[in-house]
Every structure is written in structure tokens, then in C-alpha cells.
């Protein structure tokens, strides 16, 4: 318990502030529900939340995977051909400076209001860190190692397989750490804007019906998912980085 508090005092304080804030200000529960009411709602309707969360994960996980794969592939392509490099780098720079979530409505209009569009959106959002970090990672080879590979006559393939790919593993993990929680939140936002099922759509419907404890419950579940993703990815990253030093 003491160890738990040592790590989680921040979120506990946040929860406390919420409860005290709601109680002190006496705001109507359609503005902000009591945290207890929210937790009770989650506890008594696990199936509702479970189904919505599963749908959100069904968007987030394939989107994350596809995005990371795409980013990695394009970063690799940049390694192979200078033309690709010069074509892709400005594009990626452009994309990485765009708030992608901001153009979700446009994207959904372009690709249709389907689950696949959601996956595409999440993939685009996850593509960016993957590309940026993989691109950097493939270049961050240890000092002098390129010379070593050159004097031993390594082919381009060997250089990639035995030097650049292994050297990029830590960056890969960093990309995962950044992308994984974002994937959950991005699918939530996309579902909200497109109203196509999952926690985001449930949030929108329940908000419209003033069922604020259910709406906040959706947010809470999404938060927990996202924080879990973050810490799983963080531990994976630490484990890998330690090996790579």
C-alpha cells in the first residue's frame, strides 16, 4: 500500500481534487459527475464498457501495428534510395508538423465512415513517430562501426541486417512508447468525431443524453488503457535499452 502510494500519489490526488471540487462547487452532475458515481457505473456495467473498449482496441491495435510497420518500412526505403529519401523526408516533415487529429473529419470524408478509416487514421498518427525515430535510429550507428563494415566488405544488405537494424532497436522502442498511448487516445477521438462505435462513440452518445457518469466512465477506461500501454511500452524500452548499451 505504501509503495503503491509512493508511485501513484499523483493520480490519487487528482481523484481527490475531483471529488472535493465537485462537492465544494455543487455543480450539477450533467456538468461533472461524482467520481464515485463514475466508478460505480463502470463496476456495475462491465459488459457495456468491455464491449466498447474491445472495439476501441480493435481500432487502436491494428492501427498502431500498421502505422509502426509503415513508418519502419518507409524509413528503410529512405536508407536504400536517395530519391526516396528526398521524396519522403519533406513529406514526413510536413506530416509530422500537421496536427493529424485536426483533419480527422476531412479524412473520414475522404475514406468513408468505416472502421477501416479509423484504423487508417490511427495508423497515420502512429506512422509519424515510427518514421521519425526509425529514420534517426537507422543512422545512430555506433562510432566507427560504418568504417568497420566498410573494411570488411559488407554488402548493403549486410550493413542493414547486421548494423542499421540492430542499431535502430532502441529508437524503435521509443517510437512504440510514444505511439502506443497515443493510438488509444487517437482512436477515441476519431470514434468520437465519426461516431462509429467504441468508447469514443459511447462517450458522444451518453454526453448527448446527459448521462455524464457513463461518459466520464468511457474517458476513465480509455485513460487506464492508455496509461497501461504507456507503462508496458516504457518497461519494454528500458529492458531493451539496457541491453543495447
Amino acid at each position: 500500500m505504501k509503495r503503491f502510494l509512493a508511485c501513484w500519489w499523483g493520480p490519487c490526488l487528482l481523484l481527490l481534487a475531483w471529488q472535493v471540487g465537485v462537492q465544494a462547487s455543487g455543480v450539477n452532475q450533467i456538468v461533472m459527475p461524482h467520481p464515485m458515481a463514475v466508478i460505480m457505473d463502470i463496476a456495475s456495467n462491465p459488459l457495456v464498457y468491455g464491449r466498447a473498449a474491445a472495439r476501441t482496441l480493435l481500432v487502436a491495435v491494428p492501427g498502431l501495428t500498421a502505422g509502426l510497420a509503415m513508418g519502419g518500412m518507409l524509413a528503410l526505403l529512405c536508407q536504400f534510395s536517395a530519391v526516396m529519401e528526398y521524396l519522403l523526408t519533406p513529406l514526413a516533415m510536413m506530416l509530422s508538423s500537421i496536427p493529424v487529429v485536426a483533419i480527422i473529419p476531412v479524412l473520414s470524408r475522404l475514406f468513408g465512415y468505416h472502421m477501416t478509416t479509423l484504423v487508417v487514421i490511427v495508423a497515420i498518427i502512429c506512422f509519424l513517430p515510427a518514421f521519425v525515430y526509425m529514420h534517426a535510429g537507422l543512422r545512430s550507428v555506433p562510432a566507427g562501426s560504418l568504417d568497420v563494415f566498410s573494411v570488411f566488405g559488407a554488402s548493403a544488405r549486410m550493413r542493414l541486417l547486421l548494423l542499421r537494424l540492430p542499431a535502430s532497436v532502441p529508437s524503435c522502442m521509443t517510437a512504440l512508447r510514444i505511439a502506443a498511448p497515443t493510438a488509444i487516445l487517437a482512436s477515441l477521438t476519431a470514434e468520437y468525431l465519426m461516431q462509429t462505435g467504441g468508447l469514443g462513440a459511447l462517450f458522444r452518445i451518453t454526453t448527448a443524453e446527459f448521462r455524464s457518469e457513463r461518459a466520464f466512465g468511457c474517458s476513465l477506461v480509455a485513460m487506464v488503457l492508455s496509461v497501461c500501454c504507456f507503462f508496458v511500452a516504457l518497461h519494454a524500452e528500458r529492458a531493451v535499452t539496457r541491453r543495447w548499451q
Partner: protein
Amino acid sequence: AETPSLPVVRLKLGWIANVQYAGEWIALDHGFFRNQGLDVTWTAGGPNAPDPAVMLAAGRADLSYMSWLPFLDAVARGNDLVILGTEMPRNPLGVISLPAHPVRVPRDLLGLRILAQGINETTSINAVLAIAGLPQKWTFVPAGFSPDPLLDGQGDAFVGFDTNQKLTLEMMGLKQDRDFIFTNFADLGFVTPAALLVTTRAYLAQNRPRVVAFLRGLIQGWTFNETDPAVAARLVVEKYGEDYGFDLDQQILQNRSQIPFTHYRGMPSRPLLSLDRDMMAGPMYAAARAAGRTALPDIDRIADFTVVPEAFKGI
């Protein structure tokens, strides 16, 4: 700065600050509110903005526009709200369909794939079917703001506004009743006004003169609007909604097409903004029940039919 002492009335719009609020813009610009001794401030709504009821509950607005079903939901959650009147007694929402599957009566909806933006639209379809005693047999296809997925064949019908999506289609060169069919929800049996003017009972009790004064200014604004639809459209594009980048022609068109909806059908003498008790007690309560709202509050607990007439008397 010139009139610092005027009492402030905070109005929360239900939608973005477009020509839909033509009366307000004219009243603001022509000083109708100021003549009534009021300083009216407003905040816009939008597709993702918090519901007006939330703003009322949070004490960030005094008056706001709401729809009928959300109003009932907010009351059911313990908000003591009162309807004062309605800006659009006739709701411009309806179903756009193609000649291949024309929707003219509720039965036509059965088995269709219907493109709709959100919960408001889907509830309307369900209510129509419920009122008609038909099964809820239709498929929801999520869609956005624009009706062109309907033309692409992604659905058989599109739930949209007479004053918006229908105009979009017409601006694309399509003709009503030849290329597409538009049927208002009221014609399908689901009758609700579009924009109910709402306040809290406490505010009304404490500031009744202010509310009456506000309504006076507003009525003057709407009355003026009917003389020239371009005035309000220009005010929106150039002043009050200048940050939205509206298209002037489109706003004029929308204003012109919305004016009929501010009157009761077949009752031209009914004053602007007034809420008809019979419509409320009859079709509106029926629609609420059809939409699954139970334990509806008594009509006099949620509406005050005396404020608008009082406002009219003073003009």
C-alpha cells in the same frame, strides 16, 4: 464602454454563429436590445460544443437554445428548466432520398440504409417509425456534413436540413422532386420545433423583466429579417460570424429558406417565437413518448406560455 451600466444577458447559441440566428444579429446590430435596456452577449455552439443545458447548469449562460428531446433529458437529470418560446416552430430537419427509393411516408424508411450524422438524426428516424407503429428496421450508416455519399450510393437516404444539405444539393445543380426527394420529419409524423428558447426557472423568476425585454428585441429583429433576408446574412458574414468564413450567397439562400420555418404552418397569425400549447401537449409529447421518454413532466412545469405574449404587448 458607452453603456457600461446596462444589465447583461448571456445567450448561448445551439449552433455555430450563422444566419440561423438572423433575428439576434439584426437586434444586436440595430440596437433593438440596447433600446430595451439590455447588453446581450452571446457564445456560439457547434457540433462538438458542450450542450447548452450544460452551460446553463454551469452558470455560464442565462438563456439558450435547445432541442426538445435533450431538453427533456436535462430536466430528467434534475435541471429546473423552462421553455419560453421557439425560434423555429417548424423543424427544417428531414429525409433526403433518391428517386430510386423515395421516402414520402414512414413505411418508405423500412429496410433502407440511412446516412445520418449523429444521435439527433437517428432518434428522429426511430421516433417516426415508433409513432407510425412500424418496426425499427433500417440500417444506420454514419456520415458527415455533406450529402454526396448519398449520390455515391453509400446509402439510400440522408437525414439533413431543408436549410442546409438540400441547398447544397441544389447548388450542385440538382432539382428537388426530379433528382432527389426531401420530406420533412413533420410530414412523417414526428413534430418538434427546432430551437426552443430555454432558461432556468430561477433566472426567470428573478429576471422576468429582463427576459421580456430580450424577447422584445428579438421579435423586432426577426420581424425586420423578413423584410430583407440579405441584411442578416451580410451581418453574419461581415460582422458576427466573420471568423467562420461564410459564403454570402449561401447564407442569403439559407436565410430565405429558413424564414417559413419561423412561422407555424397554416397559422400566419401566430406571433413569432411563441410556443403553441396544443402542439406541445399533442405531437411533441407524443414524439417524446415515441422516442422512449417516460415519466414526462407536467407541461406547466417545463414551459411558460405567458412571456412571449407579454413581450408582444410592449412592442
